[in-house]
């Protein structure tokens, strides 16, 4: 019995040893790159990794989605090769990176936050001001004059509006509240923008929080007469009814890859040099000009170092170069590719990565 056990342990240890030996020997052929961070682009990144590994068998990319904040921390501790973050890194974070090396940051994908509702009414139209009023609780019923004015033909019920929002700290909330603060002075004063805000509608008993896009989606499905905001990918997947939002030029638009691309077509002017990523102001991409522009869009960013050990540098460059070129043609539902000029900024940054 004892001998069998001891033998078993020995064999298992040898096997583990072999695996790590193998990967050392195989390092010439197979290199592993690790990334972590934002959960918002994770499905797209998984998709890219699958596609990339088909053409590039000797690089394995692993991405752990655990939130933008956690990604920045991992990057700072050099536990990962790259990190993804939805809001661009802050100045204070950037200064900490600079103590450890030369950081790079550039956008690699665009997404949208959409307003969704559970009501037997098709094609609801709202403007920013009205959305802000609904999410502050000022508008109590679906057949309120202010909603009726925007939807003269809709058969709106006399039911109380139930507002569902995120209960956890989230980049989605930050983008959404930044937009509302931009279009409504009152929202800016009473609520403000942030990852986690105090929703006044909660105090009226008509506002509820759900954890993650998943939680909000589940609550919206179960609650009649409710309204919520989620990332586009979730709204598409759950087949939610989306609100057409009035953009800066007065047109009502729904989020799709076309309207998102239109919103960011002129954005390259606002994207700073990748070596000064913290200078980016996400406000500039919201409520963008253009007839067909969807107003609530946001970039997701990647953080990289300018130098890595030789082999890793090569693998990282090949992956991110692929993402910014071939990868931009392989975008899944709910996201949109970045404009060419922005991709070129990123490519230049990737080219500047050196191996040591």
């Amino acid at each position, binding site marked *: 019995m004892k001998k069998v056990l001891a033998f078993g*342990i020995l064999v*298992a240890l040898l096997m*583990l*040893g072999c*695996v*790590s*030996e193998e*990967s050392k020997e195989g390092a010439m052929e197979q290199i*592993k790159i*690790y990334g*972590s961070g934002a*959960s918002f682009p*994770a*499905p797209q990144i*998984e*998709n890219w*990794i*699958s*596609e990339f*590994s088909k053409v590039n068998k000797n690089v*394995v*990319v*692993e*991405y*752990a*989605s*655990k939130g933008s904040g956690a990604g920045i921390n991992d990057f700072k*501790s*050099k*536990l990962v090769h790259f990190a993804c973050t939805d809001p661009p890194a802050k100045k204070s974070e950037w200064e900490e990176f600079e103590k450890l090396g030369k950081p790079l940051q550039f956008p690699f994908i665009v997404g949208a936050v959409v307003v969704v509702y559970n009501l037997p009414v098709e094609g609801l139209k709202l403007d920013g001001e009205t959305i802000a009023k609904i999410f502050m609780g000022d508008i109590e019923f679906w057949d309120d004059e202010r909603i009726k004015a925007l939807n003269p033909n809709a058969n709106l019920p006399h039911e109380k509006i139930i507002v569902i929002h995120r209960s956890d700290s989230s980049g989605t909330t930050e983008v959404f509240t930044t937009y509302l603060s931009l279009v409504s002075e009152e929202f800016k004063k009473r609520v403000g923008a942030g990852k986690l805000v105090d929703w006044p509608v909660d105090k009226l008993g008509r506002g509820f929080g759900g954890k*993650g*896009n*998943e939680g909000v*989606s589940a609550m919206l499905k179960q609650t009649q007469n409710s309204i919520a905001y989620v990332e586009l*990918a*979730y709204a598409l*997947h*759950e087949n939610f009814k989306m609100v057409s939002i009035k953009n800066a030029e007065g047109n009502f638009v729904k989020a799709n890859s076309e309207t998102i691309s239109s919103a960011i077509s002129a954005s390259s002017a606002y994207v700073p040099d990748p070596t000064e990523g913290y200078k980016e102001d996400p406000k500039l991409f919201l409520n963008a000009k253009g007839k067909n522009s969807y107003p609530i869009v946001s970039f997701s960013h990647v953080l990289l170092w300018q130098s890595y050990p030789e082999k890793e540098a090569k693998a990282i460059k090949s992956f991110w170069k692929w993402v910014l070129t071939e990868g931009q043609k392989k975008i*899944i539902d709910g996201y949109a590719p970045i404009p060419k000029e922005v991709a070129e900024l990123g490519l230049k940054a990737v080219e500047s990565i050196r191996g040591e």
Partner: protein
Amino acid sequence: MLRELKNKVFILYLIISAFLVLFPLLHILFSVFANGIPVLLKFGMEFLTETLPAPNKPGGGIFPAIYGTFVMVFLASLIGIPLAVLAGIFVAEYPNNALSKATRSLLLIMMEFPTILVGLFVMAIIVLPLGSFSALAGAIALSIVMLPYVATYTEQAMRSVPQQYKEGAYALGLRKVRVVFSITLKIAKKGVVTGLLIGMAKVSGETAPLIFTAGNAWRSTGGALEPAGAVPLWIYYLVQQPYANYHELAWGAAFVLMVFFLAIFLPIRLSMVRS
């Protein structure tokens, strides 16, 4: 008459409470089986041998997670069990020593300790200095979680050995070391092994200690010093994604985890009932 009625009402109350306690457990078992088995049938053997697919693409599997769980539970046992068994023996053999009293209450506290903090602790002392998430760091976190269970079971098994056996051994002139390891531990073997298996079953289902330590591996398997996946970690990440095939993978993984857990747990329970 009234007395009988009271009796019946009370028994009914007991039955209902027992059912209410059992209901969630039965519901979990049922939903994991009902949702997990179809996934396994649909994916076939690939489910156990393939790696993560892209969103909404068919096929794929959870091999890196199964591999990672086995590696980490194995390493955790290798690190944790010797320590835990020795601690258990010490506490059982010197029950009145101040150190052993402290150890005993410490073990009880450790059992209730939030496992996410264990993960943070190991991240600070292993992950950051090594500069990488790794299976080893995950295993160390798991071994800390496992330790109090194994130690407490060992202690109780050692204490349940009748004093006469030990006295007999001493009377034959054996030294303490021989008495402890060749007599008491041998008689207590069943209890100790139960503790080991319960510890292993427990940590194979742990998520929190791995979040900050193991990192993640969806597509690769590696050695002890490289990031590793784990079945519960995968379930945790996969259900947060909006894609149907990821949810399917999560149900399948839950089923695999449940089978693994029951395969360790049921034999223990049955053998306990028998003895």
